[in-house]
């Protein structure tokens, strides 16, 4: 301490231009040995440390005041529970924290656990007061205050608007439709509903459906189509596509043609019983019909010489369902030319299924382009079949449409058909991606029996809203309850929804 006092005194005097000589050095030596002087020195050191601490805290507080601190955003009505990580923010020298301005938003801050929690009851861009004390500040000192911005997002559910669509529009269609009818030996309940994303901006429902039972031949046909969100007149495209499917089979599926198929299928079933062939999954690819010539779909170039019953059936499906698909394309093309816009403006996906009851069970045929699945479940829900594969690209929205001429010349065209013989079915289901995206999420789930059973349970009332489709009513009420069920909430899935259930 003597040394320190000596250097301190020397510095003070040097500032005054006074220095010690050998002669008077004794004065300094006596001075620094004096107890009183030493204790004065100690006081000075203490005060100096104190000042240093004080200025350091002021500098640190200045730094914190200028630091960008933001707490994670909350969402109105959604449980919020955030532990503030002060260490990660570089604030490990903070010893006490409080918040002001959270309570009125139904949030509380626990400074023991440094956690903000609660269910926000407001939304907006708020300013809240963060109060803190740092290490080195006195225990009774006033807390420092920093204004932080705090974002509470609105609940997306509250932001959706339900704007009417323009009824004067030349291609206007009803926002919500549902219907129930007998379809041969089965019933059909179907509903189609404008998506929230369309309701929000007052645009139209782009989905559509159609169905019909032909008494004369015993066949029933159901079609579902999803107009592309970005195609200007796709609502008309989907409507025309569905109507054309019915119209096509009405005219082309004659008693004569139907009888031809009946004969084929009976022989085929016979062969099956004899254990010769497995059930076809897709139409045999060797049956290459040429759909490149738009006006002459009847011309078939059968490449294989040997004609088995199986390939005869393939040929039948390929030429009749394929010709129907081509007829839909032609119909849409004609419509677009007549109205002087591009066929792209009518972009729509299309799935359709034909089924007929035979004495040995049901024969189900299908065609699909796009990302809408067709599924069929057996009577006791132990087996199902996905009738088609989905067109999905690398990115969301990379699907194909019936309006794209290239699908007809693609190698994959022959794989777009489905064929199934089943004793009986509990449900034949056609849906657009508005249902599939929300309920099955990904393609892989369409291959899982348990997912289809979950889906049926959901329809049966196992859902958040406890809404049940009343299948037993077998009346328009069934379709009405289906339409209500289709209001389900699923984040990110606000597209049009169409679901056809044949049971």
């Amino acid at each position, binding site marked *: 301490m003597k040394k320190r006092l000596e250097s301190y005194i020397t510095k003070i005097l040097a500032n005054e231009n006074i220095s010690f000589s050998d002669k008077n050095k004794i004065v300094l030596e006596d001075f620094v040995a004096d107890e009183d002087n030493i204790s004065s020195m100690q006081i000075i050191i203490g005060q100096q440390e104190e000042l240093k601490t004080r200025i350091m805290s002021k500098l640190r507080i200045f730094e914190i005041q200028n630091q960008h601190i933001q707490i994670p*955003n909350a969402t109105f009505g959604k449980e919020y529970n955030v532990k503030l990580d002060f260490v990660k923010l570089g604030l490990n020298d903070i010893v006490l924290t409080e918040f002001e301005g959270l309570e009125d938003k139904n949030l509380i801050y626990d400074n023991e656990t440094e956690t903000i929690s609660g269910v926000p009851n407001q939304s907006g861009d708020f300013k809240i007061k963060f109060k803190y004390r740092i290490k080195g500040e006195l225990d009774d000192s006033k807390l420092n205050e920093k204004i932080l911005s705090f*974002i509470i997002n609105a609940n*997306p559910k509250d932001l959706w608007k339900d704007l009417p669509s323009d009824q004067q529009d030349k291609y206007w269609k009803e926002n919500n439709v549902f219907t129930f009818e007998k379809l041969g030996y089965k019933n059909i309940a179907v509903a189609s509903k404008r998506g929230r994303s369309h309701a929000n901006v007052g645009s139209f429902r782009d989905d559509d459906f159609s169905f019909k039972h032909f008494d004369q031949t015993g066949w029933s046909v159901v079609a579902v189509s999803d107009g592309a*969100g*970005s195609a200007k007149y796709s609502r008309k495209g989907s409507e025309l596509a569905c109507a054309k499917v019915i119209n096509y089979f009405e005219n082309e599926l004659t008693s004569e043609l139907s009888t031809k198929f009946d004969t084929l299928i009976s022989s085929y079933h016979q062969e099956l019983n004899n254990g010769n062939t497995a059930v076809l999954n897709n139409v045999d690819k060797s049956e290459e019909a040429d759909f490149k010539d738009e006006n002459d779909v009847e011309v078939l170039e059968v490449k294989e010489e040997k004609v088995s019953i199986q390939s005869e059936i393939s040929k039948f499906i390929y030429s009749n369902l394929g010709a129907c698909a081509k007829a839909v394309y032609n119909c849409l093309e004609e419509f677009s030319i007549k109205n002087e816009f591009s066929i*792209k403006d009518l972009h729509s996906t299309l799935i359709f299924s034909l089924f007929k009851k035979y004495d040995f069970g049901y024969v189900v045929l299908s065609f699909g382009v796009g990302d809408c699945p067709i599924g069929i479940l057996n009577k006791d829900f132990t087996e199902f079949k996905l009738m088609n594969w989905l067109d999905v690209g*690398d*990115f969301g929205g990379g699907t194909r449409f019936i309006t794209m001429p290239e699908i007809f010349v693609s190698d994959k065209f022959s794989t777009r058909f489905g064929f199934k013989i089943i004793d009986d079915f509990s449900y034949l289901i056609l849906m657009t991606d508005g249902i599939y995206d929300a309920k099955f999420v990904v393609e892989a789930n369409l291959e899982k029996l348990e997912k289809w059973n979950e889906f049926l349970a959901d329809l049966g009332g196992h859902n958040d809203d406890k809404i049940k489709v009343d299948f037993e009513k077998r009346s328009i009420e069934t379709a009405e309850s289906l339409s209500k069920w289709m209001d389900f909430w699923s*984040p990110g*899935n606000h597209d049009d929804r169409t679901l056809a259930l044949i049971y």
Partner: protein
Amino acid sequence: MRRLPVYFLLDTSGSMYGEPIQALNNALSGMINALRSDPQALDSLWISIITFDREVNEICPLTELAMFQLPEISCPQSGPTHTGKALEILYEKVQVDIIKSTPSQKGDWKPLFFLFTDGKPNDLLVYRNMIPKIKSLNFGAIICCAAGALADDSLLKELTNDVVHLDNADTTTLKQFFKWVSETIEQGSKSQGTGESVALPPPPSEITLVI
């Protein structure tokens, strides 16, 4: 849930110093607020902001809109515009960020990319080198905005057909521009299904489409 990733590349070179950078901050914040009130955007939009001057900084990694917090964007008082280097970083980020569809995973919507600049690339060779690579990323839309007299429209045209020109970078003009950007983004989230490019909404009068 499908995401709509949106990338912003913002010029923070020396020429942006002062009023322009203030205007940019205000306009961005206005755009984020507008998007926050759109339920579709709130459900699907993910935003990334990369700034470039001499350095390239990813100041906001790809973050969902609900969690997004816009930081104050600052710029040095002087320095070059390394647009090419920024494209390099963007190229890396997009490859890592974007989720593609598989049978067991929902893919993203095609990402959108907005480039805002008030000058021309000082690293022209790198810039030109990156153009085919950026194009190969399959963006739903690439939109370049040239602000002020010094911005070079023709160089941006090499990157995309969608180039807009702003006469200056003041608050009113930038607000209008970013309002249009948010409309374009909303359009992007709506163009589900075609796999084609996003149709741009008509721009306001302050914005000139460069043909």
